[in-house]
Protein backbone atom coordinates (compact mmCIF):
# COMPACT_ATOMS: atom_id res chain seq x y z
CA UNK A 1 0.00 0.00 0.00
CA UNK A 2 1.25 3.45 -0.61
CA UNK A 3 1.95 6.40 1.62
CA UNK A 4 5.34 7.40 0.22
CA UNK A 5 7.35 5.71 -2.49
CA UNK A 6 10.28 3.53 -1.61
CA UNK A 7 12.81 2.45 -4.24
CA UNK A 8 12.13 -1.19 -3.60
CA UNK A 9 9.82 -2.33 -0.81
CA UNK A 10 12.12 -4.96 0.56
CA UNK A 11 11.09 -7.45 3.16
CA UNK A 12 12.35 -10.86 4.18
CA UNK A 13 10.26 -12.74 1.65
CA UNK A 14 11.40 -10.53 -1.24
CA UNK A 15 15.05 -10.81 -0.22
CA UNK A 16 14.86 -14.60 -0.15
CA UNK A 17 13.02 -14.50 -3.49
CA UNK A 18 15.64 -12.28 -5.10
CA UNK A 19 18.55 -14.31 -3.75
CA UNK A 20 16.91 -17.41 -5.25
CA UNK A 21 16.50 -15.64 -8.60
CA UNK A 22 20.16 -14.56 -8.60
CA UNK A 23 21.47 -18.00 -7.62
CA UNK A 24 19.19 -19.73 -10.13
CA UNK A 25 20.27 -17.49 -13.00
CA UNK A 26 24.00 -17.76 -12.17
CA UNK A 27 23.82 -21.53 -11.85
CA UNK A 28 21.96 -21.84 -15.14
CA UNK A 29 24.46 -19.69 -17.04
CA UNK A 30 27.51 -21.44 -15.58
CA UNK A 31 26.12 -24.94 -16.21
CA UNK A 32 25.06 -24.01 -19.75
CA UNK A 33 28.49 -22.65 -20.66
CA UNK A 34 30.46 -25.47 -19.01
CA UNK A 35 28.30 -28.15 -20.64
CA UNK A 36 28.51 -26.33 -23.98
CA UNK A 37 32.29 -26.29 -23.76
CA UNK A 38 32.49 -29.98 -22.86
CA UNK A 39 29.95 -31.12 -25.41
CA UNK A 40 31.23 -29.22 -28.42
CA UNK A 41 34.97 -29.63 -28.86
CA UNK A 42 37.45 -29.61 -31.71
CA UNK A 43 35.86 -28.85 -35.04
CA UNK A 44 32.40 -28.49 -33.50
CA UNK A 45 33.52 -25.99 -30.84
CA UNK A 46 31.27 -22.98 -30.38
CA UNK A 47 32.91 -19.60 -29.94
CA UNK A 48 32.58 -17.89 -26.56
CA UNK A 49 30.34 -15.03 -27.70
CA UNK A 50 27.88 -17.40 -29.36
CA UNK A 51 27.84 -19.73 -26.36
CA UNK A 52 27.25 -16.76 -24.05
CA UNK A 53 24.57 -15.43 -26.38
CA UNK A 54 22.78 -18.77 -26.32
CA UNK A 55 23.14 -19.18 -22.55
CA UNK A 56 21.58 -15.75 -21.96
CA UNK A 57 18.91 -16.28 -24.62
CA UNK A 58 17.68 -19.61 -23.31
CA UNK A 59 17.86 -18.33 -19.72
CA UNK A 60 15.63 -15.33 -20.50
CA UNK A 61 13.29 -17.49 -22.53
CA UNK A 62 12.96 -20.01 -19.70
CA UNK A 63 12.33 -17.23 -17.16
CA UNK A 64 9.59 -15.85 -19.39
CA UNK A 65 7.89 -19.24 -19.37
CA UNK A 66 8.08 -19.37 -15.59
CA UNK A 67 6.57 -15.88 -15.38
CA UNK A 68 3.72 -16.80 -17.69
CA UNK A 69 2.97 -20.03 -15.81
CA UNK A 70 2.94 -18.52 -12.31
CA UNK A 71 -0.37 -16.70 -12.89
CA UNK A 72 -2.54 -19.69 -13.80
CA UNK A 73 -0.65 -21.99 -11.38
CA UNK A 74 -1.44 -19.67 -8.47
CA UNK A 75 -5.12 -19.73 -9.44
CA UNK A 76 -5.13 -23.52 -9.56
CA UNK A 77 -3.13 -24.15 -6.41
CA UNK A 78 -2.57 -21.72 -3.54
CA UNK A 79 0.89 -23.13 -2.86
CA UNK A 80 2.19 -21.18 -5.86
CA UNK A 81 1.09 -17.83 -4.40
CA UNK A 82 4.52 -17.05 -2.85
CA UNK A 83 5.95 -17.13 -6.39
CA UNK A 84 3.39 -14.59 -7.60
CA UNK A 85 4.12 -12.20 -4.78
CA UNK A 86 7.35 -10.84 -6.22
CA UNK A 87 6.86 -11.67 -9.88
CA UNK A 88 7.86 -8.20 -11.02
CA UNK A 89 11.44 -8.71 -9.83
CA UNK A 90 11.49 -11.86 -11.92
CA UNK A 91 10.24 -9.80 -14.86
CA UNK A 92 12.92 -7.14 -14.49
CA UNK A 93 15.60 -9.85 -14.20
CA UNK A 94 14.29 -11.47 -17.38
CA UNK A 95 14.48 -8.17 -19.24
CA UNK A 96 18.07 -7.58 -18.12
CA UNK A 97 19.18 -11.07 -19.21
CA UNK A 98 17.41 -10.65 -22.57
CA UNK A 99 19.08 -7.25 -22.96
CA UNK A 100 22.49 -8.83 -22.42
CA UNK A 101 21.68 -11.46 -25.07
CA UNK A 102 20.62 -8.76 -27.52
CA UNK A 103 23.69 -6.63 -26.80
CA UNK A 104 25.98 -9.60 -27.44
CA UNK A 105 24.11 -10.51 -30.62
CA UNK A 106 24.19 -6.98 -31.97
CA UNK A 107 27.85 -6.55 -31.06
CA UNK A 108 28.86 -9.88 -32.53
CA UNK A 109 26.74 -10.05 -35.66
CA UNK A 110 26.51 -6.37 -36.49
CA UNK A 111 29.37 -4.72 -34.64
CA UNK A 112 32.29 -5.37 -36.95
CA UNK A 113 31.10 -3.72 -40.16
CA UNK A 114 31.33 -0.12 -41.25
CA UNK A 115 27.58 0.35 -40.75
CA UNK A 116 26.25 1.40 -37.37
CA UNK A 117 25.25 -1.86 -35.55
CA UNK A 118 21.65 -0.73 -35.00
CA UNK A 119 21.24 0.28 -38.63
CA UNK A 120 22.69 -3.06 -39.60
CA UNK A 121 20.27 -4.89 -37.28
CA UNK A 122 17.28 -3.29 -38.98
CA UNK A 123 18.50 -3.19 -42.57
CA UNK A 124 20.91 -6.06 -43.22
CA UNK A 125 18.10 -8.53 -43.81
CA UNK A 126 14.88 -7.41 -45.46
CA UNK A 127 13.52 -10.78 -46.60
CA UNK A 128 10.15 -10.10 -45.03
CA UNK A 129 8.42 -12.21 -47.68
CA UNK A 130 10.44 -15.32 -46.97
CA UNK A 131 9.78 -17.58 -44.01
CA UNK A 132 13.08 -19.43 -44.09
CA UNK A 133 15.16 -16.23 -44.37
CA UNK A 134 12.89 -13.90 -42.37
CA UNK A 135 14.71 -11.18 -40.37
CA UNK A 136 14.02 -12.96 -37.09
CA UNK A 137 16.29 -10.62 -35.16
CA UNK A 138 13.84 -7.76 -35.69
CA UNK A 139 11.18 -9.90 -34.00
CA UNK A 140 13.51 -10.31 -31.03
CA UNK A 141 14.12 -6.57 -30.95
CA UNK A 142 10.37 -5.84 -30.93
CA UNK A 143 9.86 -8.25 -28.04
CA UNK A 144 12.76 -6.64 -26.19
CA UNK A 145 11.12 -3.23 -26.60
CA UNK A 146 7.92 -4.52 -24.97
CA UNK A 147 9.91 -6.13 -22.18
CA UNK A 148 11.68 -2.81 -21.63
CA UNK A 149 8.38 -0.94 -21.33
CA UNK A 150 7.10 -3.46 -18.82
CA UNK A 151 10.27 -3.46 -16.73
CA UNK A 152 10.50 0.34 -16.82
CA UNK A 153 6.91 0.75 -15.60
CA UNK A 154 6.96 -1.98 -12.98
CA UNK A 155 7.23 0.33 -9.95
CA UNK A 156 4.01 1.14 -8.09
CA UNK A 157 4.53 4.78 -9.10
CA UNK A 158 3.56 3.81 -12.66
CA UNK A 159 0.61 1.71 -11.57
CA UNK A 160 -0.75 4.77 -9.75
CA UNK A 161 0.03 7.36 -12.38
CA UNK A 162 -0.92 5.45 -15.51
CA UNK A 163 -4.05 4.14 -13.77
CA UNK A 164 -4.69 0.45 -13.13
CA UNK A 165 -6.57 -0.27 -16.42
CA UNK A 166 -3.90 1.29 -18.67
CA UNK A 167 -1.12 -0.29 -16.64
CA UNK A 168 -2.78 -3.67 -16.87
CA UNK A 169 -3.25 -3.32 -20.63
CA UNK A 170 0.41 -2.38 -21.03
CA UNK A 171 1.47 -5.43 -19.07
CA UNK A 172 -0.85 -7.71 -21.05
CA UNK A 173 1.52 -6.99 -23.95
CA UNK A 174 3.68 -9.71 -22.44
CA UNK A 175 1.63 -12.13 -24.54
CA UNK A 176 2.50 -10.19 -27.70
CA UNK A 177 6.15 -10.29 -26.66
CA UNK A 178 5.83 -14.02 -26.06
CA UNK A 179 4.39 -14.62 -29.53
CA UNK A 180 7.13 -12.50 -31.13
CA UNK A 181 9.77 -14.46 -29.24
CA UNK A 182 8.36 -17.82 -30.27
CA UNK A 183 8.76 -16.68 -33.87
CA UNK A 184 12.20 -15.18 -33.16
CA UNK A 185 13.38 -18.50 -31.77
CA UNK A 186 11.59 -20.74 -34.28
CA UNK A 187 12.82 -18.84 -37.32
CA UNK A 188 16.25 -18.41 -35.72
CA UNK A 189 16.52 -22.17 -35.25
CA UNK A 190 15.48 -22.65 -38.86
CA UNK A 191 18.19 -20.31 -40.08
CA UNK A 192 21.06 -21.27 -37.79
CA UNK A 193 20.36 -24.98 -38.36
CA UNK A 194 20.13 -25.85 -34.67
CA UNK A 195 19.41 -29.34 -33.47
CA UNK A 196 15.77 -30.50 -33.35
CA UNK A 197 15.74 -30.87 -29.55
CA UNK A 198 15.68 -27.10 -29.19
CA UNK A 199 12.59 -26.92 -31.40
CA UNK A 200 10.99 -29.70 -29.34
CA UNK A 201 11.69 -27.80 -26.10
CA UNK A 202 10.15 -24.63 -27.50
CA UNK A 203 7.07 -26.61 -28.56
CA UNK A 204 6.78 -28.14 -25.08
CA UNK A 205 7.01 -24.65 -23.58
CA UNK A 206 4.22 -23.28 -25.75
CA UNK A 207 1.99 -26.26 -24.98
CA UNK A 208 2.59 -25.90 -21.21
CA UNK A 209 1.81 -22.17 -21.17
CA UNK A 210 -1.30 -22.61 -23.31
CA UNK A 211 -2.60 -25.64 -21.37
CA UNK A 212 -2.24 -23.92 -17.99
CA UNK A 213 -4.06 -20.84 -19.23
CA UNK A 214 -6.89 -22.93 -20.68
CA UNK A 215 -7.33 -25.04 -17.52
CA UNK A 216 -7.30 -21.99 -15.23
CA UNK A 217 -9.64 -20.12 -17.59
CA UNK A 218 -12.10 -23.01 -17.74
CA UNK A 219 -12.26 -23.03 -13.97
CA UNK A 220 -13.13 -19.33 -13.91
CA UNK A 221 -15.86 -19.90 -16.52
CA UNK A 222 -17.46 -22.66 -14.44
CA UNK A 223 -17.46 -20.28 -11.50
CA UNK A 224 -19.19 -17.57 -13.54
CA UNK A 225 -21.72 -20.04 -14.89
CA UNK A 226 -22.86 -20.93 -11.39
CA UNK A 227 -23.23 -17.19 -10.89
CA UNK A 228 -25.70 -16.92 -13.76
CA UNK A 229 -28.05 -19.30 -11.98
CA UNK A 230 -28.28 -17.11 -8.90
CA UNK A 231 -31.30 -14.82 -8.80
CA UNK A 232 -32.88 -12.58 -6.17
CA UNK A 233 -34.86 -14.60 -3.63
CA UNK A 234 -38.47 -13.71 -2.94
CA UNK A 235 -38.64 -10.74 -5.30
CA UNK A 236 -36.33 -8.57 -3.16
CA UNK A 237 -32.75 -7.53 -3.82
CA UNK A 238 -31.21 -10.26 -1.66
CA UNK A 239 -29.47 -13.08 -3.48
CA UNK A 240 -28.73 -16.42 -1.84
CA UNK A 241 -25.05 -17.22 -2.37
CA UNK A 242 -24.56 -20.37 -0.30
CA UNK A 243 -24.29 -21.77 3.20
CA UNK A 244 -22.36 -20.01 5.95
CA UNK A 245 -20.55 -23.24 6.68
CA UNK A 246 -18.94 -23.23 3.25
CA UNK A 247 -16.74 -20.36 4.41
CA UNK A 248 -14.00 -21.38 6.84
CA UNK A 249 -13.29 -19.04 9.75
CA UNK A 250 -10.79 -16.24 8.96
CA UNK A 251 -11.03 -17.14 5.28
CA UNK A 252 -12.60 -15.76 2.14
CA UNK A 253 -14.84 -17.17 -0.59
CA UNK A 254 -15.75 -15.82 -4.01
CA UNK A 255 -19.23 -15.69 -5.53
CA UNK A 256 -20.51 -14.35 -8.84
CA UNK A 257 -24.02 -13.03 -9.15
CA UNK A 258 -25.68 -12.85 -12.55
CA UNK A 259 -22.34 -13.14 -14.34
CA UNK A 260 -21.37 -9.69 -13.14
CA UNK A 261 -18.47 -8.60 -11.02
CA UNK A 262 -17.37 -11.02 -8.39
CA UNK A 263 -18.01 -10.54 -4.72
CA UNK A 264 -15.71 -11.75 -1.96
CA UNK A 265 -17.19 -13.02 1.32
CA UNK A 266 -15.22 -13.19 4.54
CA UNK A 267 -15.94 -14.95 7.80
CA UNK A 268 -14.25 -13.39 10.79
CA UNK A 269 -14.95 -13.91 14.50
CA UNK A 270 -18.48 -15.19 14.01
CA UNK A 271 -19.44 -12.57 11.43
CA UNK A 272 -19.64 -12.38 7.64
CA UNK A 273 -18.75 -9.36 5.48
CA UNK A 274 -18.85 -8.84 1.71
CA UNK A 275 -16.62 -6.70 -0.48
CA UNK A 276 -15.57 -6.55 -4.11
CA UNK A 277 -13.28 -9.36 -5.20
CA UNK A 278 -11.01 -6.87 -6.98
CA UNK A 279 -8.02 -5.57 -5.05
CA UNK A 280 -7.35 -1.84 -5.44
CA UNK A 281 -3.68 -2.56 -6.12
CA UNK A 282 -3.53 -4.72 -9.25
CA UNK A 283 -6.90 -6.40 -9.21
CA UNK A 284 -5.85 -9.44 -7.18
CA UNK A 285 -8.64 -11.88 -6.17
CA UNK A 286 -9.43 -10.79 -2.60
CA UNK A 287 -11.83 -13.71 -2.05
CA UNK A 288 -8.86 -16.05 -2.32
CA UNK A 289 -7.17 -14.16 0.49
CA UNK A 290 -7.54 -14.48 4.24
CA UNK A 291 -8.24 -12.39 7.32
CA UNK A 292 -4.91 -11.45 8.86
CA UNK A 293 -4.77 -9.11 11.88
CA UNK A 294 -8.50 -8.56 11.46
CA UNK A 295 -8.09 -7.31 7.88
CA UNK A 296 -8.97 -8.76 4.49
CA UNK A 297 -5.52 -9.50 3.07
CA UNK A 298 -4.95 -9.74 -0.68
CA UNK A 299 -3.28 -13.02 -1.69
CA UNK A 300 -1.11 -11.32 -4.29
CA UNK A 301 0.89 -8.61 -2.53
CA UNK A 302 -0.74 -8.38 0.87
CA UNK A 303 -2.66 -5.09 0.71
CA UNK A 304 -5.17 -4.97 3.55
CA UNK A 305 -8.72 -3.70 4.05
CA UNK A 306 -10.99 -3.68 7.09
CA UNK A 307 -13.96 -6.00 6.46
CA UNK A 308 -16.42 -3.61 8.12
CA UNK A 309 -15.84 -0.67 5.76
CA UNK A 310 -13.44 -1.75 2.98
CA UNK A 311 -10.81 0.80 4.01
CA UNK A 312 -7.11 0.12 4.49
CA UNK A 313 -6.02 0.59 8.10
CA UNK A 314 -4.36 4.00 8.70
CA UNK A 315 -2.04 5.52 7.59
CA UNK A 316 -3.09 3.93 4.28
CA UNK A 317 -5.98 5.40 2.35
CA UNK A 318 -7.07 2.72 -0.14
CA UNK A 319 -10.78 1.89 -0.36
CA UNK A 320 -12.79 -0.87 -2.02
CA UNK A 321 -16.53 -1.39 -2.67
CA UNK A 322 -18.51 -3.13 0.04
CA UNK A 323 -21.85 -4.99 -0.16
CA UNK A 324 -24.77 -5.45 2.20
CA UNK A 325 -24.91 -8.95 3.57
CA UNK A 326 -27.30 -10.88 5.88
CA UNK A 327 -27.75 -14.42 7.14
CA UNK A 328 -31.09 -16.19 6.97
CA UNK A 329 -31.06 -19.54 8.70
CA UNK A 330 -27.59 -20.80 7.79
CA UNK A 331 -27.69 -19.23 4.31
CA UNK A 332 -25.74 -16.14 3.31
CA UNK A 333 -27.58 -13.52 1.26
CA UNK A 334 -25.96 -10.58 -0.49
CA UNK A 335 -27.41 -7.44 -2.03
CA UNK A 336 -25.52 -7.31 -5.36
CA UNK A 337 -25.60 -3.51 -5.59
CA UNK A 338 -22.05 -2.32 -4.94
CA UNK A 339 -21.82 0.41 -2.30
CA UNK A 340 -19.33 3.25 -2.88
CA UNK A 341 -15.74 2.35 -1.92
CA UNK A 342 -15.17 2.59 1.80
CA UNK A 343 -18.86 2.44 2.84
CA UNK A 344 -19.30 0.95 6.33
CA UNK A 345 -21.60 -2.07 6.42
CA UNK A 346 -22.72 -3.90 9.55
CA UNK A 347 -21.33 -7.48 9.24
CA UNK A 348 -23.90 -10.27 9.49
CA UNK A 349 -23.78 -12.32 12.69
CA UNK A 350 -23.43 -16.08 12.44
CA UNK A 351 -25.53 -17.89 15.06
CA UNK A 352 -23.32 -20.67 16.35
CA UNK A 353 -24.92 -24.00 15.45
Amino acid at each position, binding site marked *: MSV*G*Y*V*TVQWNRHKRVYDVCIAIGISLYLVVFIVVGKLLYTGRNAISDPILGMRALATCAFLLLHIILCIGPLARLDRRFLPLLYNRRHLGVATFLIALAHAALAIGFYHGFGSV*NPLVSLL*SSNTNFASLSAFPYQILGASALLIMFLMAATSHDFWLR*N*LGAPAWKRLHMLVYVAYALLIMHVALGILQTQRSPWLAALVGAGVVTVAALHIVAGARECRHDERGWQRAPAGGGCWVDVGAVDEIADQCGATVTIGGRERIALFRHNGRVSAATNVCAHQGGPLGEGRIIDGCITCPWHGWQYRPADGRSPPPFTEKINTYRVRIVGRRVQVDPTALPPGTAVEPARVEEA
Partner: protein
Amino acid sequence: MVVAILLTIGLYAAIGAAFGILFAWRGVDRIDPAAHGASWTFRLLILPGVIALWPLLMMRWRGAARTRDSS
Protein backbone atom coordinates in the same frame (compact mmCIF):
# COMPACT_ATOMS: atom_id res chain seq x y z
CA MET B 1 14.89 5.15 -44.23
CA VAL B 2 16.23 3.00 -41.38
CA VAL B 3 18.66 5.76 -40.48
CA ALA B 4 15.78 8.24 -40.33
CA ILE B 5 13.78 5.98 -38.02
CA LEU B 6 16.74 5.47 -35.72
CA LEU B 7 17.47 9.20 -35.65
CA THR B 8 13.86 9.94 -34.73
CA ILE B 9 14.00 7.40 -31.91
CA GLY B 10 17.31 8.87 -30.77
CA LEU B 11 15.92 12.39 -30.76
CA TYR B 12 12.81 11.27 -28.87
CA ALA B 13 14.99 9.57 -26.25
CA ALA B 14 17.32 12.59 -25.98
CA ILE B 15 14.40 14.93 -25.28
CA GLY B 16 13.09 12.30 -22.89
CA ALA B 17 16.40 12.20 -21.05
CA ALA B 18 16.59 16.00 -20.70
CA PHE B 19 12.96 16.19 -19.57
CA GLY B 20 13.38 13.09 -17.43
CA ILE B 21 16.11 14.57 -15.28
CA LEU B 22 14.00 17.66 -14.58
CA PHE B 23 10.94 15.53 -13.99
CA ALA B 24 12.61 13.09 -11.63
CA TRP B 25 14.16 15.99 -9.74
CA ARG B 26 11.09 18.23 -9.44
CA GLY B 27 8.13 17.01 -11.49
CA VAL B 28 7.25 13.76 -9.72
CA ASP B 29 6.59 15.59 -6.49
CA ARG B 30 4.13 17.83 -8.32
CA ILE B 31 2.06 15.16 -10.00
CA ASP B 32 2.11 12.63 -7.18
CA PRO B 33 2.14 13.64 -3.49
CA ALA B 34 3.34 10.18 -2.52
CA ALA B 35 6.70 11.04 -4.13
CA HIS B 36 7.41 13.84 -1.62
CA GLY B 37 10.80 13.28 -0.06
CA ALA B 38 11.38 10.08 -2.05
CA SER B 39 15.00 8.95 -2.31
CA TRP B 40 17.22 9.62 -5.32
CA THR B 41 17.34 5.91 -6.04
CA PHE B 42 13.56 5.95 -6.50
CA ARG B 43 13.96 8.90 -8.88
CA LEU B 44 16.65 7.03 -10.80
CA LEU B 45 14.45 3.94 -10.96
CA ILE B 46 11.56 5.73 -12.67
CA LEU B 47 13.89 7.54 -15.10
CA PRO B 48 13.90 4.88 -17.88
CA GLY B 49 10.11 4.89 -17.89
CA VAL B 50 10.03 8.69 -18.00
CA ILE B 51 12.37 8.68 -20.99
CA ALA B 52 10.01 6.28 -22.77
CA LEU B 53 6.73 7.97 -21.82
CA TRP B 54 7.78 11.61 -21.47
CA PRO B 55 5.00 13.24 -23.52
CA LEU B 56 2.41 11.77 -21.14
CA LEU B 57 4.21 12.97 -18.03
CA MET B 58 4.80 16.39 -19.54
CA MET B 59 1.03 16.73 -19.95
CA ARG B 60 0.47 15.61 -16.36
CA TRP B 61 3.03 18.07 -15.04
CA ARG B 62 1.46 20.94 -17.01
CA GLY B 63 -1.97 19.90 -15.75
CA ALA B 64 -0.74 19.83 -12.16
CA ALA B 65 0.89 23.27 -12.53
CA ARG B 66 -2.33 24.71 -13.96
CA THR B 67 -4.60 23.44 -11.18
CA ARG B 68 -2.16 24.81 -8.62
CA ASP B 69 -2.13 28.24 -10.29
CA SER B 70 -5.90 28.44 -10.50
CA SER B 71 -6.49 27.42 -6.90
